[in-house]
């Protein structure tokens, strides 16, 4: 061997040995985590930690451990008390809601929760939250009645109020009145929840630690309601945007929970003895929103033609692949939920190219391009839009599919002249009036007189059974006027370590009442 080659060989051998020496103990050290820490791999960095101003699911997932609302939802999606001690006393005219407050509740800064804090927080909610702002015009007053009661008076009866107050996004979070600064976002994140914020390093981690002074509601745990116990010392949320990395991190034991995994990753967990997949039903539904205000899709008959032209089953299959993760379901609420109704969703399955062609002719369509906005940022939406494009073209429509990044789509959809349809998705909401397309100011701008009447009747109704009937009437309007196409239901795949005990699958995963076994 020549001297030059020999010296190179020696160097390479040395480097290999050094690398092995460094690598070997690393995994052993890093695979271990303190047993009281649960590391949750999330899809990214939340835009804020103030749950009032935004309706982001990621914000809800994290902040629901820190902030609490007067009410929340139980396992059957019924409103149940959280910071309130009972359901409100509603006046005979249906306009006044007296909220009785729990006593002995303390904020993370050690101060006691008072009726004044609650009133200030509700006022803030009406100014900052998209949900609160939607109710604000109907609110006459929010007042402290006595040290343990706050009364909200409406100008007219509005049944969804309690559900709005129970939501964890755009949340009516109760905070000390000292941190409330009009409609400005929070600068201090002080709540009453079982966990308090220890540290937020953007793009690295959000550390929530057990709040020892937590006062739990009573009663058996049910959904988000009932008793809450912080059995885990620290819940640490880490942004891991790459789904394959979230899966690998679960399999390697670096994370104890990973959210929003692609359905095709399910097979990776089948041979694992330490990780179990979690399928969350109901979770959400994709929507093809149409512009009912301006342009070619403002024609109701043409929207009906589009509904007849597309095949939702094909779109769902393209979007999610594995039938375990979706259902081609036209009812806005899926089977097993209180507002499920298949009969009023009949047009969902009546589609055919022939019917589409007839409706297209009746609508007077002359081949104007239908501008459909979509984004690759949500892969399933992009795949669905490709299928919809092909189906619409096969039915004789001219389609201009515009592939945009999500931020551009969000901006462009505010311009009524810039688009005819766009793809988005809606997370499951327990109260129908929270569905965005029912809001006339939401892009798509569905606002016919008949829809307004149907929605008003639904929102006024207090009896649960009659309310279901009113919802069916509203869903009928949805399928008559076709402001959007509900493509189907999809489910969420998450994964948890088998050491995580007591975890309850939920659309917005929570970790109180869960614990890590040894």
């Amino acid at each position: 061997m020549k001297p030059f080659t020999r010296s190179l060989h020696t160097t390479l051998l040395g480097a290999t040995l050094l690398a092995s020496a460094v690598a070997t103990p690393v995994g052993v050290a890093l695979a271990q985590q303190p047993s009281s820490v649960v590391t949750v791999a999330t899809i990214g960095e939340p835009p804020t930690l103030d749950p009032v101003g935004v309706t982001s699911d990621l914000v809800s997932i994290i902040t629901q451990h820190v902030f609490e609302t007067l009410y929340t939802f139980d396992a059957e999606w019924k409103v149940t008390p959280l910071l309130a001690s009972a359901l409100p006393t509603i006046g005979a005219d249906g306009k006044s809601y007296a909220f009785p407050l729990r006593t002995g509740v303390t904020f993370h800064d050690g101060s006691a929760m008072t009726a004044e804090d609650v009133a200030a927080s509700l006022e803030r909610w009406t100014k900052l939250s998209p949900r609160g702002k939607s109710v604000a015009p109907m609110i006459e007053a929010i007042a402290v009645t006595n040290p343990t009661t706050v009364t909200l008076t409406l100008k007219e009866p509005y049944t969804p109020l309690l559900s709005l107050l129970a939501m964890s996004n755009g949340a009516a979070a109760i905070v000390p009145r000292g941190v409330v600064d009009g409609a400005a976002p929070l600068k201090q994140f002080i709540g009453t929840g079982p966990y308090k914020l220890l540290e937020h390093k953007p793009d690295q981690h959000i550390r929530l630690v057990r709040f020892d002074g937590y006062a739990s509601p009573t009663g058996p745990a049910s959904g988000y309601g009932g008793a809450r116990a912080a059995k885990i010392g620290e819940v640490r949320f880490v942004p891991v945007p790459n789904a394959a990395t979230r899966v690998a991190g679960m399999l390697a034991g670096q994370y104890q929970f990973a959210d929003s995994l692609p359905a095709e990753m399910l097979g990776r967990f089948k041979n694992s003895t330490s990780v179990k997949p979690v399928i969350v039903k109901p979770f959400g539904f994709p929507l093809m929103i149409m512009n009912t205000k301006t342009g070619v899709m403002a024609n109701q008959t043409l929207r009906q033609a589009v509904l007849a032209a597309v095949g939702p089953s094909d779109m769902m299959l393209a979007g999610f692949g594995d039938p375990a993760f979706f259902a081609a379901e036209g009812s806005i609420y899926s089977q097993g939920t209180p507002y499920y109704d298949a009969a009023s969703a009949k047009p969902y399955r009546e589609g055919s190219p022939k019917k589409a062609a007839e409706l297209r002719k009746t609508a007077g369509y002359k081949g104007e391009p239908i501008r459909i906005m979509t984004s690759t940022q949500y892969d399933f939406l992009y795949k669905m839009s490709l299928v919809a494009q092909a189906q619409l073209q096969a039915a004789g429509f001219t389609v201009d599919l515009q592939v945009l990044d999500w931020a551009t789509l969000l901006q462009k959809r505010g311009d009524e002249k810039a688009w005819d349809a766009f793809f988005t998705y809606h997370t499951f909401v327990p109260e129908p009036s929270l569905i965005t397309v029912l809001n006339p100011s939401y892009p798509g701008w569905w606002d016919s007189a008949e829809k307004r009447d149907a929605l008003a009747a639904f929102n006024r109704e207090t009896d649960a059974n009659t309310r279901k009937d009113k919802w069916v009437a509203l869903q009928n309007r949805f399928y008559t006027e076709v402001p959007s196409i509900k493509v189907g239901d999809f489910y969420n795949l998450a994964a948890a370590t088998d050491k995580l005990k007591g975890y309850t699958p939920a659309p917005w995963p929570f970790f109180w009442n869960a614990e890590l076994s040894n």
Partner: protein
Amino acid sequence: MFVYVARRLAGMMLVMLIVAAVVFVIARVVPGDPAAVMLGSSATPDDIAALRGRLGLDQPLYSQFLIYLSQIAHFDLGQSIFLNRPVAQALAERSELTALLTLMSVSIAVAIGVPIGILSAAMRGRWVDQTAIGIAMLAASVPSFWIGLTLIKYLAVDLPWFPVAGYGPPDASLLERLRHLVLPAVALGIPNSALILRFTRTSMLDVLSDDYVRTARAKGLSPLVVVLKHALRNAMIPILTVIGLTAAVMIAGAIVTETVFGLPGVGNLIVSAVLRRDYPVIQGALLVVSGIYVLINLSVDLLYAVVDPRVRY
């Protein structure tokens, strides 16, 4: 030398001013709205308009630009719309990771590329050379995200030697953080080593055919001395250039690797800022990165004089 450095630094100021203006314009010209992203998909146009007002995004562009220039003049990069902290702080928080990752991956690229490049040139046309060229082609062709995912599968999941992702728990020591960077540095270093290998080989081949190398061999010097002492030093200028450029590109260009390994580096910060249209972060980060880029190039130019005494400034 002093005059040369001063002149280059003055030029750097001009470059950064141009970068500031161009980035400001491009960020605003591209469609998308930070207010819409922040409020989420359920937000109505009224909500978005209200937030735009609070963020000052409803002011005329020239007014926003003047505010931005005034901030730069006061060495203030502004406040991030999303991160709830100054841009300078957000960059500082990510600088340690980015600096270490760049250093480690460049070291790996150099450790692989330079010796094999030299060996390949010294054994031109033989099986060692052919193999090295083949491996270099392969390494340059394989995307770093694939290398990253493969390394994760085999060295973090199947054999739990390294962590899958992240920069370590909050109380991690520097050594533990360095261990988190081993796989990303390898994933970044391998494709870049191919570039350095090719440059080293080409540069060495040029030098090895020179008369003085032939003379050195004729004098009976050992091949190791001829290659490492006489030829390598003269071949170093192009090699240094490519190493400098590689390091500069990695500072903000390790985006894919940072995403795969869930690393909160500068590249990730810039991409997140672009996706969220966090204008102050886009502007501030690109300004700083362009400054570092120019400084690295200046350092490489100064190093020329160290490796080659004929170079004078």
